[in-house]
């Protein structure tokens, strides 16, 4: 239903990369045309949703149906049960599902992160002027979207950096993201760490202010991902590559600062994200009020370079293990981490597609998380340093 062409959307989407654009796979080469992709209605899903909105899937011969989910656990079950074979996930989820860290295992590939940055910690207006750092979260109730989320992992380490024990000193509450703006308004929670649009939405509703953008905790960190079931990808290699081309092209289109405002307008339609355009515009263009009376212009508030850097996976895996979320699995050496991540991250396919489109494909050798350098070869050192 979402694969319908939208009038007014720019066609020939590769304005920036027209010359490099490969010839779309002939329909005859596709093992099947119809595929259902799961998504979560937040700005992170822009590359996937935009590919449908701008008919990019169609140009690659695919007939895509987007299925909306509002709970991450539902989406997890839907994927493991085979209801969807390709879907948006929070970045840690594919690692957990593939390796069987919790109930529900299915082998899969993660070719893309759908976005980098694009998250924040928003605090209730009642606490305006009282929050200067992580230590001020003592005794507060912090809403989080899911255990297997970068939000959960990064927020916990952020609290640790303020000298708090997240288990003891802060009331961490997993909630449905859609309920959290209301929960913040009525005082059921004091703050939340969520993907956008929720941070900007709380500002627009006048109930909260943006305390910190997670890009300032970890620059260009991954947030959501796109994953395809291993069995599906193996049986339908051409469909898999066509999906990567369509979403890759869409992601790089959306990543272009020139296209952010148009994308916000398109995504705001009820058929796609169905969210207020000013909110989406603030998130995507990076020109936004933060709820304390200040205006910001931060173009990299959210990014859409999809390459799955191994360093992302290793930091996530290390954090999952530190917070007891890897079940009976444990990882010690850099090689063990690297093997577990490369089993999931399909950087080879991503690299070949993205280099055709002119996207970033250089592996990142080091991350800086919460001010400390993180070396993916020696993941344990980072948390000790913190």
């Amino acid at each position: 239903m979402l694969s319908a062409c939208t009038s007014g959307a720019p066609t020939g989407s590769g304005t920036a990369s027209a010359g490099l654009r490969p010839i779309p796979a002939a329909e005859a080469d596709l093992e099947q045309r119809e595929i259902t992709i799961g998504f979560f209605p937040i700005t992170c899903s822009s590359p996937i949703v935009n590919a449908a909105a701008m008919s990019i899937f169609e140009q690659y011969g695919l007939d895509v149906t987007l299925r909306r989910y509002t709970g991450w656990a539902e989406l997890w079950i839907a994927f493991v049960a085979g209801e969807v074979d390709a879907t948006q996930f929070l970045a840690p989820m594919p690692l957990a599902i593939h390796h069987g860290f919790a109930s529900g295992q299915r082998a899969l590939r993660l070719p893309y992160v759908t976005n980098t940055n694009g998250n924040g910690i928003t605090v209730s207006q009642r606490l305006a002027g009282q929050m200067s750092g992580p230590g001020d979260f003592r005794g507060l109730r912090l809403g989080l979207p899911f255990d297997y989320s970068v939000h959960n992992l990064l927020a916990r380490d952020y609290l640790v950096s303020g000298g708090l024990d997240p288990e003891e000193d802060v009331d961490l509450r997993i909630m449905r993201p859609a309920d959290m703006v209301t929960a913040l308004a009525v005082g059921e929670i004091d703050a939340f760490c969520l993907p956008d649009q929720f941070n900007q939405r709380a500002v627009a509703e006048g109930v909260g202010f943006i305390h910190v953008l997670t890009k300032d905790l970890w620059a260009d960190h991954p947030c959501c991902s796109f994953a395809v079931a291993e069995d599906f990808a193996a049986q339908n290699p051409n469909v898999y590559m066509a999906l990567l081309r369509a979403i890759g092209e869409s992601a790089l289109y959306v990543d272009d600062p020139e296209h952010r405002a148009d994308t916000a307008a398109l995504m705001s339609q009820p058929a796609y994200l169905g969210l207020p355009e000013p909110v989406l515009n603030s998130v995507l263009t990076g020109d936004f009020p933060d709820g304390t009376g200040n205006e910001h212009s931060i173009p990299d508030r959210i990014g859409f370079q999809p390459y799955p850097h191994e360093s992302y996976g290793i930091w996530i895996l290390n954090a999952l293990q530190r917070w007891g979320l890897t079940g009976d699995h444990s990882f010690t050496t850099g090689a063990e981490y690297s093997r577990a991540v490369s089993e999931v991250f399909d950087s080879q396919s991503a690299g070949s597609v993205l280099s055709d489109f002119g996207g970033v494909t250089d592996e990142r050798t080091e991350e800086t998380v919460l001010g400390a350098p993180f070396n993916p070869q020696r993941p344990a050192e980072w948390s000790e340093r913190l």
Partner: protein
Amino acid sequence: MTTTPRALQHRARRERTVFQLKSAGGMVLFAASFIAIWHVATAGYEDGGLAPTPLASGQRLIEVLSSAFVHNPPNEVGIVFHLAASLQRVVLGFGMAALVAIPLGLLLGTSRVIHDALDPVIQVLRPVSPLAWLPLGLALLRDSQATAIFVIFMASLWIILVNTIDGVRRVNPLYLDLARTLEATTANRVLRVLLPAALPGVVTGLRTALSTAWLVIVAAEMIVGDRGMGTFVWTEWNAMNINSMVVAILVIGVTGLVLDRSIAQLHRLIPAN
């Protein structure tokens, strides 16, 4: 006329014991075949434990029960405290509903005029799903604890009210004639005649309302509430501990059974002299 021979009593007792043994045996048999079917049904999946097996669920049950009394707030709380929190909400919401609905039901059951005036309101509000009150409660009360209790109140109120009215309507009119010929005071007429006579209807209402309340609290706590069985289900689900769902279902079900059985005992509470 009243002295049953001892032998008869013995025989009656023996027959009762045999009957109880038979039903207990049937129950064990049923439970065993249920677990067997469950095992067969879930054994075939290779999905990394998405579909909970009896064995995994049993292990999880032991884990949950052995940490039942752990109290390390805010983030580590045993199931006993979740259960207590849910029960507290249900008792408060349900109790307040009973306090409002029973007297109101006695009034509406005896007064045609007031009943006809209020009946449309009751009929419009009664079929509203209790969870539909949740956003409204949250918006009005601005407090998740009060909202959860409010939802339980709304879920119980109409059921108790309608059943109480019905119970009063079914009271033998001669009892009320008797009360009149005795010139019974209003208090005596209502508390000593009308209420006990209408009690079957009231108890039916209370039973239905309590099981509905228990049904609703779990759903409500998945949305609001920092502690409770619903919160437990929600948190365990989001940690993808599907085996915990089976434990939760068991605990919720057994608690529901105990609640229902205890409220059914209210029949015995009819006031004597």
